[in-house]
């Protein structure tokens, strides 16, 4: 990833900026129907050329699934969402490639689509060979007898689907020389893409190299393997010419994997003092048309986080994922964490209202004074000290009184599992670094240079962090789940220490001079088998005009980052994530009509926040070191978890209307 000094000149090398000789452009013919039988497809590459189903890789991979519900690369007997790839055409010029879409003729017999979770549960199976539309279902936590509680509250909430919409669309170039395949791609995870392509097309993995191009944002949408990637690769091998595919924004909105799309039924049991003694829940994820995406696993991830920073002793949750005629669900910044927080914190506000307690009071009484492992599996450190201080720092009581502020507490569970790899090469006085995870706007080069300087005294200006490249590392994981500074940083520290030992073994002692005069390679894969999380608290205030239009006045946040390795970027991540959190509450939603046609077809309809939506920000960074060698904790997703909770509560207090879903629409707030 080019550094900022190049990006401000327009000198980055994003995948669409790469031009290979003799390159073909690909355009994809897509299903116009949410659900139909495919009677015939003529023209382009299509179902008769390739029968494969999309295999696994990356964060968006939900693990092995029933083959009957796997996503076919080209639609076979049926199509199951508007935008599903049906055929592909190719030309020397991208305008001509789009013209050639007219040459594809497909005949369909329309079927009634399944568009909601309820229809999925009650309707007949989408896919022949499956018994129901449930992809995955599991109970979390041991069952218990309902306690005799003075307070029992029950409610239902939902979070609408959101398209990730990084400014750079998805895209790749596949280049095959007759023996070796090289893929240049906009991605969060080169190894996931490599594994996915290799398993889908049954390729020899020693002949596949995936190189990350500069990547213009992702927010989760660029970790999965998509059918278009497989088609471009297949075509490059078939035609022996490089094939480029860059999606249009309409394709991104229709056929990338959106996030959220979750419903929760929650029930809590509490004492009169606000102490929650038990929790029951049901989490239902709208996973879209096929199994295998992140949607297959997200109900478990949401379910296990439902107790958050609170010491709730009993909890039992049914986590279910169902199929509908929409694109497969994927991770969007937070990826289950914001949903869990929304369900839980809404219930805490209900409880506060029920008991006539302050929102901070009812929350604080449920925080813990020592480490706690919830019955659902979430492990937290003592949460009370952080939240007590955060509530004071945010001046919650004062602002609750004067401005009807909303408050939210949350836990950010960093996706450290799987660990990460790092490689450091020293040659001719220069230091080159590769990480298994691939930055796409987070400036990983800043923490890499800082840690190498701390560990080995290497001057920052001789260090280059290169783009992700499966040719340069043996293995790697990816950038998502607020993990990179934590696990990528830990891998860098470990690789640096190994390098130091190499120098000591060769030269007798370590000095920078001894290091730079030699040639060294140090590569590590640092596995992590711990749960690592961080706490955060957000306060928000809003105003609502007579038309029900909400303006967020202030978002104040208190975030524990463990150690602030790049303070300017931390602030920027918080502000960017805050705007995304506001977007979720006020503007963003994927809307289909009853026929399954997409109604939110451009960026304005999709509701991306604009500069004028910016509130006042107040940011407080807390550094409570983690046990990692670089002391970092996760951050990137934190604001998208905490902000919606606080903003929704502020809207509720300002409007007097109970809020049970996002987005909140102006008409709901009018008398």
């Amino acid at each position, binding site marked *: 990833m080019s550094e900022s000094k190049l990006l401000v000149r327009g000198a980055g090398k994003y995948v669409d900026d790469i031009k290979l000789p003799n390159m073909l452009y690909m355009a994809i013919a897509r299903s116009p129907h949410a659900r139909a039988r495919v009677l015939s497809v003529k023209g382009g590459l299509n179902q008769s050329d390739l029968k494969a189903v999309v295999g696994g890789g990356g964060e968006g991979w939900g693990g092995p699934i029933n083959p009957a519900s796997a996503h076919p690369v080209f639609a076979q007997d049926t199509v199951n969402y508007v935008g599903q790839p049906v055929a592909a055409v190719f030309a020397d010029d991208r305008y001509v490639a789009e013209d050639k879409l007219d040459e594809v003729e497909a005949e369909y017999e329309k079927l009634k689509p399944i568009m909601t979770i309820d229809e999925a549960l009650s309707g007949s199976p989408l896919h022949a060979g499956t018994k129901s539309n449930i992809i995955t279902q599991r109970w979390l936590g041991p069952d218990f007898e309902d306690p005799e509680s003075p307070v029992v509250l029950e409610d239902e909430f939902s979070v609408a689907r959101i398209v990730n919409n990084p400014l750079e669309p998805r895209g790749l170039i596949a280049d095959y020389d007759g023996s070796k395949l090289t893929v240049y791609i906009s991605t969060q995870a080169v190894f996931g893409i490599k594994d996915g392509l290799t398993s889908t097309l049954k390729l020899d993995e020693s002949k596949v190299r995936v190189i990350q191009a500069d990547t213009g944002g992702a927010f989760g949408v660029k970790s999965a393997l998509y059918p278009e990637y497989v088609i471009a690769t297949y075509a490059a091998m078939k035609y022996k010419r490089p094939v480029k595919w860059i999606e249009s*924004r309409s394709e991104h909105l229709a056929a990338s994997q959106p996030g959220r799309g979750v419903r929760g039924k929650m029930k809590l049991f509490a004492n009169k003092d606000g102490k929650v003694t038990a929790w029951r829940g049901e989490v239902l994820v709208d996973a879209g048309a096929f199994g295998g995406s992140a949607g297959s696993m997200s109900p478990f991830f949401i379910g296990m986080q439902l107790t958050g920073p609170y010491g709730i002793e009993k909890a039992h949750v049914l986590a279910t994922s169902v199929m509908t005629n929409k694109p497969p669900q994927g991770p969007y910044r937070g990826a289950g964490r914001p949903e869990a927080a929304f369900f839980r914190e809404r219930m805490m506000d209900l409880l506060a209202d029920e008991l006539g307690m302050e929102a901070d009071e009812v929350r604080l009484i449920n925080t813990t004074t020592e480490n706690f492992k919830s019955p659902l599996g979430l492990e937290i450190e003592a949460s009370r000290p952080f939240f007590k201080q955060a509530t004071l720092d945010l001046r919650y009581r004062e602002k609750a009184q004067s401005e009807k502020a909303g408050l939210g507490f949350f836990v950010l569970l960093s996706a450290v599992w799987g660990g990460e790899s790092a490689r450091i090469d020293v040659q001719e006085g220069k230091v080159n670094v590769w990480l298994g995870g691939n930055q796409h706007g987070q*400036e990983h080069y800043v923490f890499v240079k800082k840690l190498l300087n701390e560990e080995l005294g290497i001057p920052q200006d001789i260090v280059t962090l290169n783009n992700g490249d499966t040719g340069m590392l043996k293995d790697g994981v990816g950038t998502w789940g607020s993990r990179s500074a934590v696990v990528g940083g830990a891998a860098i520290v470990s690789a640096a220490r190994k390098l130091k030992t190499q120098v000591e073994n060769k030269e007798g002692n370590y000095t920078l001079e001894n290091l730079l005069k030699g040639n060294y390679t140090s590569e590590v894969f640092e596995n992590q088998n711990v749960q690592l999380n961080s706490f955060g608290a957000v306060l928000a205030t809003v105003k609502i005009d007579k038309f029900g239009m909400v303006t967020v006045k202030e978002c104040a946040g208190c975030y524990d980052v463990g150690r602030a390795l790049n303070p300017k970027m931390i602030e920027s991540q918080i502000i*960017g994530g805050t705007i995304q959190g506001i977007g979720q509450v006020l503007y963003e939603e994927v809307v289909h009509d009853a026929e399954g046609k997409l109604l939110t077809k451009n960026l304005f309809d999709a509701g991306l926040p604009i*500069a004028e939506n*910016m509130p006042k920000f107040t940011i407080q960074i807390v550094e409570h070191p983690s046990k990692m060698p670089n002391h970092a904790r996760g951050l990137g997703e934190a604001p998208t978890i905490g902000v919606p909770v606080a903003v929704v509560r502020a809207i509720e207090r300002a409007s007097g209307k109970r809020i049970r879903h996002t987005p909140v629409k102006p008409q709901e707030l009018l008398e």
Partner: protein
Amino acid sequence: MTMRKVKTSFKVNGKPVELELEPRRLLMSALREDLGLTGTHNACDTTNCGACTVLVDGKAVKSCTMLGVQANSKEILTIEGLAKDGNLHPLQKAFIEKQGLQCGFCTPGMIMTSYWMLSQNRDFSDEEIKRMLSGNLCRCTGYRGIVESVKYSKDLMRKKGGDTE
């Protein structure tokens, strides 16, 4: 299906160019594909996002909303034309220093719109800056760094002209 091409001449970043363009070809494609000026980015095709913003005869224009042939005899300024002799324009320097970017994809368009703002030679309030940036979308930064960058670039310009990298 290809159309008859039309000879089109214009200036880009001070240099005259001559292209044979299909009438349907967007200015954005002419810049990116035919002239190799890939700093102008395509993010939406629908004039929503502003990542392809360039200056046409001094005005900020989304280059996906204009045909290449319409650029005939006009002067175009792209992001590649801002730095002079290796010296970054104060806006570019400000975007680095005030964290006006993360992934960098919206950045050229943001800078070109901001460049037009600065060319108006007057002071804008924060609210005015936000309104003028409302046709440029950024998914990463939450915009504050961008607004700060625009303001800071004015400070830099008051101190002196360009600055070295």
